[in-house]
């Protein structure tokens, strides 16, 4: 076995993969949010449509998006491998457990939270990514140039109250996942310092609240605007 696979196959190496892919996905969330916030600009979706078209046609963004799919998959697959391994390490549990005395709920529920996020992602990709790629998308023209009217697809989807509720709840799940995941990734990378760790923890908590909240705000605003 080469030293690379030996390292990555150790329990520490598997966690390293979780941390690195996790940090990439955290950065992805920021970029995705910046794009999405254009949905609520009062210009009938012009800037969002132009942005979506630019993203879809830029070759660099295409490479990053393939990487992104890969990392999501890697994050999920390694989570499953680790969960299986960890379950084997304690085949018989305790009759009485006071886990809440020593750890946070989100840190103990990363697996279930992650599974819910994966389900959300599948619905999300079916609703938007698949529709834009393979569905029929209306065309809109700005200054003589025609664009796919991505905004129309999104705003139509957000007229369904159940869809909006599903999105908002999923962002709540994401918030709990990030509340532990953000700072945990740094600890796994070996970054733990009296000066910086308290800051990383606070930053992680702020990120876990602000980013999902802004994501959730978009479908709520668009639902209210549409009705």
């Amino acid at each position: 076995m080469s030293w690379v696979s030996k390292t990555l196959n150790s329990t520490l190496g598997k966690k390293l993969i979780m941390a690195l892919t996790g940090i990439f996905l955290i950065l992805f969330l920021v970029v995705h949010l910046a794009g999405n916030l254009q949905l609520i600009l009062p210009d009938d979706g012009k800037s969002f449509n132009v942005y979506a078209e630019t993203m879809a046609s830029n070759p660099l963004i295409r490479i990053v998006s393939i990487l992104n799919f890969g990392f999501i998959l890697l994050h999920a697959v390694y989570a499953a491998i680790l969960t299986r391994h960890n379950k084997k390490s304690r085949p018989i549990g305790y009759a009485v457990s006071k886990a809440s005395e020593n750890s946070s709920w989100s840190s103990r529920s990363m697996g279930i939270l992650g599974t819910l996020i994966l389900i959300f992602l599948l619905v999300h990709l079916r609703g938007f990514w698949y529709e834009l790629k393979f569905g029929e998308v209306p065309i809109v023209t700005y200054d003589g140039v025609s664009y796919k009217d991505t905004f129309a697809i999104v705003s139509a989807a957000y007229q369904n109250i159940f869809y909006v509720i599903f999105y908002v709840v999923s962002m709540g799940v994401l918030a709990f996942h990030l509340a532990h995941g953000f700072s945990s990734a740094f600890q796994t990378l070996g970054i733990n310092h009296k000066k910086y760790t308290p800051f990383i923890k606070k930053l992680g908590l702020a990120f876990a609240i602000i980013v999902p909240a802004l994501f959730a705000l978009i479908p709520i605003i668009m639902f209210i605007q549409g009705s």
Partner: protein
Amino acid sequence: MNLTLKVWRQKNPSDKGGFKDYTLSGISSDMSFLEMLDVLNEDLSEKGDDPVHFDHDCREGICGMCSLYINGQPHGPTQTTTCQLHMRSFKDGDTITIEPWRASSFPIIKDLVVDRSSFDRIIQSGGYVSVNTGGVPDANEIPIPKIIADEAFDSATCIGCGACVAACKNASAMLFVSAKISQLALLPQGKVEKRGRAEKMVAQMDDEGFGACTNTGACSAECPKGIDLSNIARMNREYFAASLSTEEH
């Protein structure tokens, strides 16, 4: 104090085992938890029953021999060893559930006694300094910053009881292994071999079947010696640096 105990009884490693209820009366709140169990065992012996088997040795909180998962927490409700846990932490009429450490790497020998020799094998794989470093050097002969000396000392206070494994939802031994790696990596005598040591000890830890770390912090919160999570971060650094820099491949 009057108490009801729910104790895990298991005849041997292959026995299925189960909880058995016992009632105790006239327990003093000044007794240690182990003294309370001594009272129970005296009762059982007098009746001709098999006493409850549990690990203990120094009863001073320094040897790491006692264990027990008490009412859902390793070493019970206070952050100390079971031998230093006193009955004043409980109330008259309480029901106390006593379970063994649960981990596939800590197989049950009998009742509440588990085999923690997996920890010994991890230490044997690299938790030492290979050469004789002689007697105690003169003070200040080898300059070590106070902050480093303190940190190494804090790591070295790990008594290897296994509460970290018992507390962890993954039965991970990372807090134990990282404390042992840290105490040696921080000081000049141990520093020389720190890279190879991290690789060997982590490999042995994985071979023993301990779980991975989710950074829940349960280990540190339950550790009777309060070993800090920064040890695990240091172990990760040492291990990744070792696999990138050592010449064996």
